[in-house]
């Protein structure tokens, strides 16, 4: 009765290939391409779904957080079971995406994107899609994209407002030139402070996804060259022209020669780390990065002996502390301290409960986490 797999799935992309600018040739290009999606929260989950359904050959997901009930209102790939199981977002998303399109190679990494790992994560991809929730990580991604000469498709949403732009090495200015680097104040509006409506997520993710499909199918000339600012409530939409690269910028300057002013020499500036400690935390969660990886099982035992209520899964340990806060610990050596926005308090709790687990005192690399 059952037909062969190839026959069953032959029409999977038929409605997309009938769209003339894509066609069979564009579809083959999609199948041969790979993208990195950084942040698999609201924007990231929607972007991932668009890329996987469209048939992009390889989709890399990276996210530092896990699924919670407050995500379900807008983060389309997650359900109640994911929140109850406290699955990392990258893992939960990959599970769903594999069921949507098994032809796509999907990799999921539970990690914080930083200057140390960003180049490796972006290696070999044709573009980077922005699903992050903070300016610092975006500045880092823009820097690495301009150095590796791959497009960075920015998207941001908060309240009922959103923005999106394609930042194209060789054509446009980089993000740092447009919004200022670490010296510029503020992280911008976030979902923590303004809330966020799911329709603005879908609109902005769609704006990013369509430009990604244009780029990956060889339709670069069709790419929208404007910075889009949208408010859905009240309704307002505005496009601004994006200037070209700025002479003297180490990332987008000197574009005529086809490479950034620094070329191969410099390290990517770790803007993320330097900025992170300044991000306000509306969700009462502080991320503390410890010296070295955790052994989850041993850690769970130790925390139980300290009279904490401990929940464990394959990817993380969560300990409810008697003081009211909770620690969520990932094997890569990160702790999310929930229930405080005070960085000193977060570090103090980590020192107290995680003594002996890492190389001693936690490094001062602390970030506040937005609800992405």
């Amino acid at each position, binding site marked *: 009765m059952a037909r062969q797999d190839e026959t069953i799935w032959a029409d999977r992309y038929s409605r997309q290939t009938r769209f003339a600018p894509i066609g069979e040739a564009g579809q083959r290009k999609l199948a041969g391409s790979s993208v990195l999606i950084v942040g698999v929260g609201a924007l990231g989950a929607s972007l991932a779904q668009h890329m996987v359904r469209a048939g992009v050959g390889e989709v890399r997901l990276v996210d530092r957080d896990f699924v919670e009930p407050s995500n379900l209102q807008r983060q389309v790939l997650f359900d109640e079971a994911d929140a109850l199981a406290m699955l990392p977002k990258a893992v939960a998303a990959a599970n769903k995406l594999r069921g949507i399109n098994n032809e796509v190679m999907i990799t999921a990494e539970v990690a914080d994107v930083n200057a140390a790992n960003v180049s490796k994560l972006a290696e070999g991809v044709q573009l980077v899609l922005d699903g992050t929730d903070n300016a610092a990580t975006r500045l880092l991604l823009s820097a690495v994209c301009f150095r590796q000469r791959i497009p960075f498709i920015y998207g941001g949403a*908060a309240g009922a407002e959103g*923005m999106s732009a394609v930042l194209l090495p060789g054509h446009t200015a980089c993000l740092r030139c447009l*919004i*200022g*680097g670490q010296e510029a104040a*503020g992280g911008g509006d976030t979902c923590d402070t303004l809330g966020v409506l799911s329709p603005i997520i879908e609109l902005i993710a769609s704006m990013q996804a369509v430009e990604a499909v244009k780029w990956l199918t060889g339709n670069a000339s069709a790419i929208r060259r404007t910075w889009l600012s949208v408010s859905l409530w009240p309704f307002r939409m505005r496009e*601004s022209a994006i200037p070209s690269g*700025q002479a003297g910028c180490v990332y987008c300057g000197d574009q005529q020669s086809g490479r950034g002013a620094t070329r191969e020499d410099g390290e990517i500036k770790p803007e993320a780390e330097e900025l992170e400690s300044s991000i306000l935390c509306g969700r009462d969660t502080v991320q503390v990065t410890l010296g070295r990886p955790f052994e989850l099982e041993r850690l769970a035992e130790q925390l139980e002996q300290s009279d904490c209520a401990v929940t464990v899964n394959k990817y993380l340990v969560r300990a409810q502390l008697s003081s009211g806060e909770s620690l969520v610990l990932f094997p890569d050596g990160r702790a999310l301290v929930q229930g405080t926005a005070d960085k000193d308090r977060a570090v103090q709790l980590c020192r107290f409960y995680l003594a002996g687990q890492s190389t001693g005192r936690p490094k001062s690399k602390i970030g506040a986490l937005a609800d992405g």
Partner: protein
Amino acid sequence: MDKPNWNQFRLYVITAEANHPGKTLADVMEQTLIGGAHIVQLRNKTGSRAEVLEQAKALRLLTRKYNVPLIINDYPDIVLETDADGVHLGQDDLPIAEARRLLGPDRIIGISTHNIGQALAAERDGADYIGVGPVFPTDTKPGRAAVSTSYVAEAARSISIPFVAIGGITPANVDEVLAAGAKRICSVSAIVGSPDPAATCRAFLQRIEAAEGKEAGRQKQLTVNGRAEQTNARTIEELVRQLGQQNKRLVVELDGVIVQRALWAETELRSGAAVELVQFVGGG
């Protein structure tokens, strides 16, 4: 008060009979009105109440003829009796609140101030205008140290009710006071002691108008986020600061094109420009 535009005044003249021996108060003050004085204050610190009342009645008739407000120094009761437009108080006279209680909400209450603390207090207490001075040493108020144009500049920055610079100001030094930010000038002896008060008033007004012209040259009409905005900001950086947005992460568009953050300080604004300041959206 039936003079809704009284606070548009530029040249404020105060009586000083001792400065014009041989000429009557009414004659001299009419000359100042012919010369274009915008507001007249009767100041008589030595005469009896009956004498002040007589002078007030005379000046009330005169100022009505020229449609100029009359302010009486110190005597709220004479203000009411002669239907003058307001009272001017010194720091040691009755409090503003008391004058307001006596005169009601519509009469003008002004007060002399000699430092920014007094100026802010006067503004807070409901004064309609303040005097700022003495800017230069003056024989009209011997013994009071001059405050210099730095207090004028301070008042221009911090005070939002009308302020009038006073004290030793002459057509020869008025440019300095205007450059410090004064838009209203008061002169006593330089005008009423002049052989030709009308000509002196015209000389003052000419300097004031010249300064206003310079100021107008610096003002630009912009459209900021769709709304008309008048500003003297020279660059985008200055505009962002004036609008109090310097601590936000912004995307700034000038006439349809985003201006790179590093270029804000050198990107000049011209009249008619359309600027959009949009806060960067960071959520995701």
